[in-house]
């Protein structure tokens, strides 16, 4: 049966999220945009306490608890929560303590022992962060170009990691501000291409792992974006996620890429939350000036602003439904690579169009830092870039609809 009722379990959570967004995020959103690299500890500590009170887990990306009885809602709930928090502020949402992308990788590719060892730290008394280290200066979307290496020292049974990672979201908080960890992508056999690519857990305090730089960004400034250098960084053998041997196939790599099926709709949900915030504020500001939107009229009778706003609503709602479909499939164990990338493309497009148009429509008010519209316009752009650019995700969609492999369409 086709249905679109928000599950009760989710509506309850959303009421809490909205309270948090209104009271804890909106009031400080501008401050942390203008004080880049300051850590919003009040917000972080509050969120940690709140998450614990709600039974832990929180917005954990490692949401897919497959042992639970009844209808699975984990990813649907996560999408709603991320949407709601991003409505509050996308930069602060990214400062949310608890398992994020690093944990998603551990959950997807780790053993039970690894999950226990790495993920239990999030349930402690103090907030803990994780981070994903994939991008290098010469390897962005093309992850097969990663140059960081992992060599096994058989005498000590340790992996020795070397390389430099950039654009690590929350890298500083994961390595220096909490007892967190990073998940580092490196090759165990540079001649093997993708088949040699593996991920390794590096815990905070590990010698040889150093945060070397904090980026200054266009938007999402509340969130730290770090460079991390690994210099003869030794981690125990058992910190590798997945098989330690090079196989002839790229199965391991593909398995890792499958993490994106779970994370892309969640990143899309972030875009949707911001787009909803923008459209909401725009309509409020217009209403204050006596501009109401006359739904139901043919286009020929609408004003330019009405046309824009109606178009934004269409874009926003339909993009959100694509996100819901992708996470609904995830929760129900249906293969969702296509829907996942579709939702990411659409949400990335929509949040940019909506924030750009909102600034344009509000003119001098839109461009002013007195209001949040200009900030949201800057915050929006990242949604079309990280977790696969709009172009990479178009490529994924194109290959799937054409039944092409990467050698057929590159």
């Amino acid at each position: 049966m086709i249905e679109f009722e928000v599950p009760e379990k989710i509506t309850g959570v959303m009421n809490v999220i909205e309270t948090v967004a209104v009271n804890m995020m909106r009031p400080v959103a501008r401050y942390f945009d203008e004080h880049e690299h300051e850590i919003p500890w009040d917000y972080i500590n509050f969120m940690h306490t709140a998450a614990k009170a709600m039974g832990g887990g929180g917005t954990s990306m490692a949401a897919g608890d497959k042992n639970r009885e009844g209808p699975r809602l984990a990813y649907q709930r996560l999408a709603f929560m991320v949407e709601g928090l991003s409505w509050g502020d996308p930069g602060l949402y990214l400062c949310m303590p608890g398992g994020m992308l690093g944990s998603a990788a551990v959950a997807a590719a780790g053993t039970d022992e690894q999950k226990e060892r790495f993920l239990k730290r999030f349930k402690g008394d103090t907030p803990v962060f994780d981070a994903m280290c994939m991008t290098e200066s010469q390897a962005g979307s093309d992850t097969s170009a990663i140059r960081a290496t992992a060599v096994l020292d058989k005498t000590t049974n340790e992996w020795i990691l070397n390389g430099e990672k950039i654009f690590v979201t929350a890298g500083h908080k994961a390595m220096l501000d909490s007892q967190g960890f990073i998940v580092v992508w490196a090759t165990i056999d540079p001649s093997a291409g993708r088949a040699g690519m593996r991920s390794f857990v590096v815990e905070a305090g590990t010698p040889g792992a150093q945060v070397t730089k904090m980026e200054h960004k266009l938007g999402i400034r509340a969130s730290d974006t770090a460079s991390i250098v690994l210099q003869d960084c030794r981690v125990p053998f058992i910190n590798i996620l997945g098989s330690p041997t090079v196989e002839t196939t790229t199965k391991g790599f593909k398995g890792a890429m499958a993490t994106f099926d779970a994370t892309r709709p969640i990143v899309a949900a972030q875009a949707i939350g911001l787009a909803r915030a923008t459209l909401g504020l725009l309509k409020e500001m217009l209403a204050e000036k006596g501009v109401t939107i006359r739904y139901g009229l043919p286009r020929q009778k609408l004003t330019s602003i009405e046309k824009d706003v109606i178009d934004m609503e269409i874009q926003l709602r339909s993009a959100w439904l694509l996100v819901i479909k992708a996470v609904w499939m995830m929760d129900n164990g249906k293969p969702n690579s296509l829907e996942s990338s579709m939702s990411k493309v659409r949400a990335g497009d929509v949040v940019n169009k909506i924030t750009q148009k909102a600034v344009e429509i509000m003119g001098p008010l839109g461009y002013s830092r007195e209001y949040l519209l200009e900030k949201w316009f800057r915050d929006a752009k990242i949604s079309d870039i990280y977790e696969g650019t709009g172009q990479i995700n178009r490529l994924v969609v194109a290959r799937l609809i054409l039944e092409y492999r990467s050698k057929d369409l590159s």
Partner: protein
Amino acid sequence: MYSFEPSEEQKMLIDAVNRFATNDMRPAAHDAEESGQYQSRLIDKGWELGVLQASIPEAYGGFGDRSVVTGVLAAESMAWGDLAGSMAIMAPGLFTMPILLAGTEEQKKTYIPAVIEAAWQPYTAALLEPKFDFDANDVATTAEASGDEYLLNGEKTYVPFASEAKSMIVYAKMDGKTRGFILPSGTPGVTIPAERQKLMGLNALPFYSVKLEGVRIPKANILPGEFGPVLDASRVTLASMAVGVAKAAFEYSRDYAKDRDVFGMKVAQKQAIAFMLAEMAIEIEAMRALTWEAAWMLDTGKPDATKQAYLAQTGAADMVMMVTDRAVQILGGHGYIREHPVELFMRNGRGFATFTGLAMV
């Protein structure tokens, strides 16, 4: 809860409609468009699928309760086969659905079974008017009480099967609101020219203008209910049909691109084309979800359902234009030739912003 999975019954209906659309409608579409004639054999066969009958309660001769979701699923599949054919097959619904949604119990019992229990017969409705800023909620045709009758004046356009229709619903403004009126054929004051109207697409459908000059109809013929639900039904139906047409255009151009050689590879292997196709697929999927949600909101009586139906039609009309335009573009010169169906998809696609009232389930 959320679910994007049709029920078993819905799947059976969609399968049946898909088979008919693939085996009967699609092969006939080109000749029907060129000759301006839709085969009555196909109309009868399509009618027997029971799409319309399925949304009429048993009390009025149908198979069950109305489900907008089921209706839009079937309408999408049928429009995928051929838009003009779908509108021809479902034309009697333009008459029965407003009576079901806005009629009295007596009207429902009098009019609906006669249409639904029989073979396909020409019934229709007249909503559109020949003006650029036509607004279904603010029509120019007027109705006023005059003794025991209503007096109707105005001019209607794009009325399918008007000349042969046994009866039609005419929409007119009364007390500031759009209302439906049952207008039996042969009523004095109604002028239907012999010549059919010529449109950019939908040539297989016989469209006529209808002039109403001092037309008197009994007071019992007004549909007392609100026009809103009727308009909502038309909006989501058209949205779903736009999705069907877009899907057809997308699939045809995708298959063509995978087959067409260019510079030593298939044209689909060029990102310029592959990305166009990816965006088309995403747009279709997005508007399909929006349409399904609008249909579900109508079924469950959600307060925002009317707005959502409007957004769905508006968005789907944009989407189908974008998709069909690109389908023609992907075929290049071949797309412009009428031997391929994409130019017809494109002509049909442009109409969805205009077709309000021409289909409803």
